[in-house]
């Protein structure tokens, strides 16, 4: 019973941390982007302020059952995915459910939220939402392919499909996978540009064309809940990359409070530096058209992915 209590407590703790980190990263990005564009910009806590405002709105508009459910799908997908990703190496406080699913499962559960959200957006009846969804799904077919190739490369090289085992391999050998299979890392990073949807891949929201796309009809508690889900998702993607390519964070055996805190700090440093890659890329890029965005992933990222699998087979 005590075990279960710690697990539930750990799960809640993980969720809160993921939420806070995701929101703060978003805020920092807004500030940095503003400074690059020679604006003053909002404070880095602006996302929290926005959320508070949205959640405290007294009137909300719903467009039917699927629309009402849309934010719930995102939260479900976000928290469930989070439960299957090891946050720190073998730490007692973040055990979650890592041993019940593997990489293939992860690839699919991550789509769950987008599709649920897409259905909700579809029911609102706003044409911009549907166009955004059409673009988003098309783009997904683009970036998923190099990403899967990168993952297959890892699976083949280490003969495992579990994230936990991949982290352990890196702990034991002391070499991060980003160095032992650099092509896989590069393919995955290029694919992540599409996942984070900063310029030039911001075709889904496309503020100037689609009035924020799929979310255009949502406001108040709905938009607020979506924002929280999105922030958790940002943390999930970053942690997944750190786990897979950068050896995870924290050292497994020590579960003391200071070791845990140190682990979290290391995790934050690694995730933040990864997060800046799509952000930096976005600052210097205009927006692609949808087909250009898809074709982008079928050039270098795809080639790198194929090389990563060959590399893994040859090794």
């Amino acid at each position: 019973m005590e075990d279960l209590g710690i697990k539930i407590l750990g799960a809640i703790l993980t969720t809160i941390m993921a939420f806070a980190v995701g929101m703060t990263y978003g805020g920092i990005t807004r500030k940095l982007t503003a400074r690059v564009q020679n604006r003053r910009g909002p404070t880095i806590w602006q996302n929290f302020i926005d959320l508070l405002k949205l959640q405290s709105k007294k009137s909300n508009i719903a467009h039917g059952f699927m629309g009402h459910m849309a934010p719930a799908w995102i939260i479900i997908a976000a928290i469930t995915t989070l439960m299957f990703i090891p946050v720190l190496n073998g730490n007692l406080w973040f055990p979650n459910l890592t041993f019940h699913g593997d990489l293939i499962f992860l690839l699919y559960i991550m789509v769950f939220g987008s599709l649920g959200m897409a259905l909700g957006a579809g029911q609102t009846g706003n044409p911009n939402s549907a166009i955004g969804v059409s673009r988003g799904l098309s783009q997904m077919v683009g970036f998923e392919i190099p990403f899967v190739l990168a993952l297959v490369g890892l699976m083949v090289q280490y003969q495992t499909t579990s994230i936990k085992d991949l982290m352990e391999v890196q702990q034991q050998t002391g070499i991060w996978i980003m160095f032992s299979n650099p092509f896989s890392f590069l393919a995955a990073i290029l694919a992540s540009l599409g996942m984070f949807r900063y310029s030039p891949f911001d075709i889904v929201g496309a503020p100037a064309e689609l009035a924020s796309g799929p979310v255009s009809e949502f406001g108040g508690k709905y938009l607020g809940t979506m924002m929280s889900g999105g922030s958790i998702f940002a943390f999930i993607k970053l942690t997944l990359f750190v786990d897979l390519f950068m050896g995870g964070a924290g050292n497994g055996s020590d579960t003391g409070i200071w070791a845990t805190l140190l682990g979290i700090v290391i995790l934050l440093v690694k995730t933040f530096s990864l997060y800046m890659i799509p952000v930096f890329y976005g600052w210097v890029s205009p927006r692609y058209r949808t087909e250009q965005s898809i074709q982008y992933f079928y050039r270098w990222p795809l080639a790198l992915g194929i090389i990563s699998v060959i590399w893994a087979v040859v090794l």
Partner: protein
Amino acid sequence: MNSLFLILIILFGGAIVAYLANKLAPIVSSIVSFITITTAAVLFFTQVNTETIYQFTLGGIDLQWGIDYYTYIFAMIVFGLGVLASLYSIQYMQDKERLGYFNFNFVMAILGMTGIIFSQDFVSFFIFWEIMTWSSYLIVIYNGKEVRKIGIKYMIFSAIGAYAMLAAIVSIKGSFGTFIIADAINAGALSTNFYIPILLLIGFAVKAGTMPMHVWGPGAYSNSPMSFTTVFSGALSKMGILGMGIVLTALYHKAAINDMFGVMFIKQSLMWLGAITAAIATIYAVIQTDAKKLLAYSSIAQLGYITIGIATGTKLGIMAALFLAVIHGVFKGALFMVVGAVERQVGTTDMTKISGLIRKMPWTFLVALISIIALAGIPPLAGFVGKWMVYEALITETNSYFLVVVVFFASTAGFLYSYRFLFGLFLGQEEDDTAHVKEAPATMIIPMMILAVILVVIGAFPGLLIDPIANAMGVMGYTDVNFGLSTLSNVWGEQLNMQSIGMSIGIVFVVTFAFLSLKGMKGTKNVGTKDISTSGEIPYDHENMTYQLDFFKPFERALAPLYKRSMDKIWNQFGEGLEALFDFTRKFNTGNGQTYALYVVVFLVLMLLLKDTLFIN
């Protein structure tokens, strides 16, 4: 009387009674067909077991009927879907004409499939195969639309398949002297001469709709009445998989070591054909605007995954294939029923013409949603379990790393048409034309709901279905199939626990749903789909702004090179070539008696002139 024989007799009698009952009242014919199939199904599940066998001699040929754990899986699909589809059919076909004709062929198709499942010799297998083909052909041309284009295409490909199969059966008899399937396999009929298994595989690939023999599929599936397409796509196409399973298992297990290169060749080409089928059919499903056509292409794509699984010949691969075969029958059956319900209630299935049916047909939408989640392979429903096994089999057991990526491409692009289907029919702004539409009648909703519930239950407890599949794999020669009630594992030891996934999703769902619904409940206003922000423009009341035309145009543009060539065009060109050839021969075969007389004279003269060189002795 032997129960196997009895089941077939009941089906045959029922078919005739259904035909005659149409004179009484059309609806009686449908009810008779439902009762017949249900009786046969009840008899099968209560009276028949693996011990049951029926042997007799017909015209000097020993025939043998029976059932084993492998064919039992397919019997489950045929009888399960048969009963539900015929129940659905009663009200779906209510106002249609020539119901006697339709129901006769419907029951005959079930009879054909049941016969194939029972057959343990090649002769009855072939006879029942032809019964199945002919009855389905007659239903494909039932509504009289585009008979020439669709019906003939189906018939030509079926005929090619049948001839290939017949040639193989005759060679087996010639070389090995037996028609009994088990004896032939033990004698090495399917593993010594490669042309025999290849010919058989061609026959089965036609029914399974594998590239390049798939072109009959989209037309035939979408042109039949939906209550039959449920069986057509869900069960009838699986007969091809049944045959492939038998042939490939024999080939993989019995082939001599020095034939391994040939075996590898067949295996790899079949796997790649499956993958290409899945990918190409998927991208064509994406650009369809007719919901029926979309599902038809999707069926071909899904059969591609099953073909890959069965072609791997590994434990997890076969398990995945059989699992998907059943699950595909369930969700595609449900989806074709959904389209049928929409067609009956609205009058069209063109997604550019209808939208926003979710409020009018909520139950149908619920079934569509669950089935689409299963089709797309999203956890926690049963479709995901099948997909997971396919991937794990390919990665861990066969080293087909690039094949995995093609499959993944197909399956990701599958999200596109999955969404298109739900959006096209049920979401978006409501049309004024469809204001009168009501939910489909209960006898149509109930079979759909049953199928949807199966998807949810098998999703949480895949072990329920894997249990009979493990028995089937025992028959095929795979022992120690490893599975739990809700835990799956691959050869590398990784595990997937569907129950904890389901629970995690369930708990979060309840919490967030409660949060969204209860928080600020008073302030939440539920508005219609016309009340939207339009960036300052004010649309007229009758204007429908739903984005339906060219929904995935950017995707189409991005993959333009893939859309350029199509197998359909290639076959058509082949057909035109043949026509040109026949036109050319017509110059000689003019049909004029005098010309033929001239040929005879010329021939005789030539003979006389050349008699010394031709007939030396």
